[in-house]
């Protein structure tokens, strides 16, 4: 354990300010993307689950349910795409 700590301390001494900024940028970008993907994942799971339940209860309305479900998935996914674009801009621009 102490060897690991020593190695970490040695590595930290060699790091420049630019390296810290790069690490911070990558961490923040990863957090932005990861956190932005969690919400839509939960939303899509809930949405599709409820849609399947609705189709099971009323099979004659399956077409309408699938239509609204598809649009709902696409709208929910837009949140993840916004997070993804923020990630791209933080990481590469």
């Amino acid at each position, binding site marked *: 354990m102490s060897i690991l700590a020593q190695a970490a301390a040695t590595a930290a001494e060699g790091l420049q300010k630019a390296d810290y900024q790069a690490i911070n940028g990558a961490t923040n970008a990863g957090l932005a993307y990861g956190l932005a*993907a969690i919400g*839509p*994942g939960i939303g*899509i*799971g809930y949405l*599709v*689950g409820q849609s*399947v339940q609705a*189709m*099971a209860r009323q*099979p004659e309305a*399956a*077409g*309408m349910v*699938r*239509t*609204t479900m*598809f*649009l709902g*998935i*696409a*709208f929910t*996914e*837009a949140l*993840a*795409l*916004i997070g*993804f*674009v923020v990630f*791209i*801009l933080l990481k*590469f*621009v």
Partner: protein
Amino acid sequence: MTSPSAVEGPAPETMIVRDIVKRAAIIAPVLVLVFGLIWGVDGALSTAYGLAIVVCNFALAGALLSWSASISPGLMMGVALFGYLIRLALIFLAIWLVRDASWVALVPLGITIIVAHLGLLFWEMRYISASLAFPALKPSPPK
């Protein structure tokens, strides 16, 4: 306990995606022109690439959901969630591969992805909400 059966009826996802592709073809020249004027040739090319990503994303989502619904609702649930993850990964890959290319401008590319995705969806939603609210407006099937 009954065995899961396929969802009956025609696949509305395919029709929605077809509509979205038609609408994307309408807005593509306008977006490419506007972003080209702001960011130059690189902006125009990046906008076209972003639009292609958005349309492919919709097409893949529609194809996956239609296919899985024709098999079973349980599979559709799995495909919807894992398809979401796979499509996000594919979009990431599509941008990762070209991020250092000379013709790529990331700002217009990112803006295009968000604007085109939301814009096409709202446009399609207007049409669909009208046809769901007023079913009589739907063309009747041939007898």
